[in-house]
């Protein structure tokens, strides 16, 4: 099963390199997001672009990874619609191999997106104020969160009728999660009802963990980096406990 999953993961990666739009998703898109937020809004929000890149870059990485992790459902749905899965199912491979292959391939996509964003951030003035292993921990943490979140997308991908519907539903989930957090502005500037949502939004904790691990300080007063990381690990456990069984159940029903 491991060999089959790796062969199918290679398929995801090959497709990414052969298809400009999929490659743009993990290379050009995070750069454009960074440019837009840092250079256009940076001055207005933080007074200077160099100050703002330090604040926004961890959040931009999280946002990029959230969007990337939700494409798995769109891709799986397309494979089913186009009959590619029927071909796989007529082969003597494990039923779960196409699913785990897609997840493994996505981890490679995430790594590329993270690397591109960090390198571009460094070029435009992002300073890593923490030891290297904090950076490594940040990357591992965001990938862990992405792999926990992707089961939501797998579930939607198995239940929705068309890949367009999967895309629409996924966006509905991603937008309040990413923008309703401390990605782009400190939570203290928000109206109080929204602050309530931001405080319980798991993505806020992911962003604050990233911010803490990459810059050494979080934007939330009175909370430690370790505390934030524990929150993230807890949300990963909840996501996996709820959505992994549901997603694999829906997958087995289809496959």
């Amino acid at each position, binding site marked *: 099963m491991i060999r089959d999953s790796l062969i199918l993961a290679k398929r995801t990666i090959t497709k990414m390199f052969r298809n400009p739009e999929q490659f743009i998703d993990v290379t050009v898109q995070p750069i454009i997001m960074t440019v837009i937020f840092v250079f256009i809004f940076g001055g207005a929000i933080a007074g200077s672009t160099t100050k703002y890149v330090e604040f926004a870059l961890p959040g931009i990485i999280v946002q990029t990874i959230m969007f990337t992790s939700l494409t798995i459902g769109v891709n799986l749905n397309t494979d089913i619609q186009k*009959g*590619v899965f029927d071909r796989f199912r007529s082969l003597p491979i494990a039923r779960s191999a196409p699913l785990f292959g897609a997840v493994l391939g996505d981890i490679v996509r995430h790594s590329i997106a993270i690397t591109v964003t960090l390198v571009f951030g460094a070029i435009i003035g992002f300073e890593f104020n923490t030891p290297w292993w904090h950076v490594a921990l940040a990357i591992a943490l965001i990938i862990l969160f992405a792999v926990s979140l992707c089961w939501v997308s797998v579930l939607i991908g198995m239940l929705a009728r068309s890949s367009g519907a999967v895309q629409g539903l996924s966006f509905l989930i991603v937008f309040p999660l990413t923008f309703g957090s401390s990605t782009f502005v400190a939570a203290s500037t928000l109206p109080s009802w929204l602050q309530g949502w931001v405080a319980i939004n798991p993505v806020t904790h992911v962003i604050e963990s990233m911010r803490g691990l990459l810059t050494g300080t979080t934007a939330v007063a009175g909370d430690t980096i370790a505390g934030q990381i524990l929150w993230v690990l807890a949300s990963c456990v909840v996501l996996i406990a709820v959505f992994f069984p549901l997603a694999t159940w829906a997958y087995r029903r289809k496959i």
Partner: protein
Amino acid sequence: MTAAVEAHGLTKSFGKTRALDGIDLVVEEGRVLGVLGPNGAGKTTAVRILATLLRPDSGTATVAGFDVTHHPKDVRRKIGLTGQYASVDEDLTGIQNLVMIGQLLDLSTAQARVRANELLAEFDLTDAARRLTKTYSGGMRRRLDLAASLIGRPDVVFLDEPTTGLDPAKRDDVWDMVRVLVKQGTTVLLTTQYLEEADALANEITVIDHGRVIAHDTPQGLKRLVGGQTLEVRASVLSDLPRIEELLTAVGTRAPEQPSPDLFSVPVSDESALTTVVATLAAEHIPVSELSLRLPSLDEVFYSLTGQREQVAESEGKAA
């Protein structure tokens, strides 16, 4: 002879729709079975069950000696499947598709590459091997799909409507490839909506409708059952129509029909009818704009078969 495919009493429902209502199918080793039926007859459902993609609600089936519900993995090692819709990955090149499937069939990368190149050459796709398959034409895609199902040298190949949507020249290409397969000893089960296709390729034909088998025979037997071929004559001069009708009445097995104002068609039992009609038309200097002998269409097959079934029911009713 042993059966490569044997199914008994297969049923399958989707919600309230009964897609299969007790189907029996048998294909002897090295032979070709044509499963003929209109859209929605249950052909694809039957193939999906035999290829282990679906579980039947009841009934049993063995393929290459293995039970499809209890040993699906063993069945999958022995079969190749070409779906109604080409199921290659559009975002990979032809060779990437074939190599990937080879690897999934436990070939080493090197072996998979050799086998892929072999099949690309055989299916005349070597020049297009490194292009994304979404740029392929319909015929090329169908050929790649067929190649993909042959990588593991399967004993049994399922072809689900292999030529639907192809123009006649491309269709002939696919037919030739199926004949090569059969020559190599492969057992083939193909579904089709065209009697002509089943007649050209199959040793035996099973006709299904509404999830049931309504006839099973050799192509010759089936053609005899449905009245063989149809002779059509289109008049150039409308005043000749009465004479043409008379002529066709003389050679036909039923009264001629008039599907359009200048056209008469009649079922005939053998080809000599054509010679008779041509000779008479020539002798009497009657010009015609069209003269053809063709196999009955699926509609006509069903008309004859279901009509006959009703007759059988009637006579049984009388006997009782």
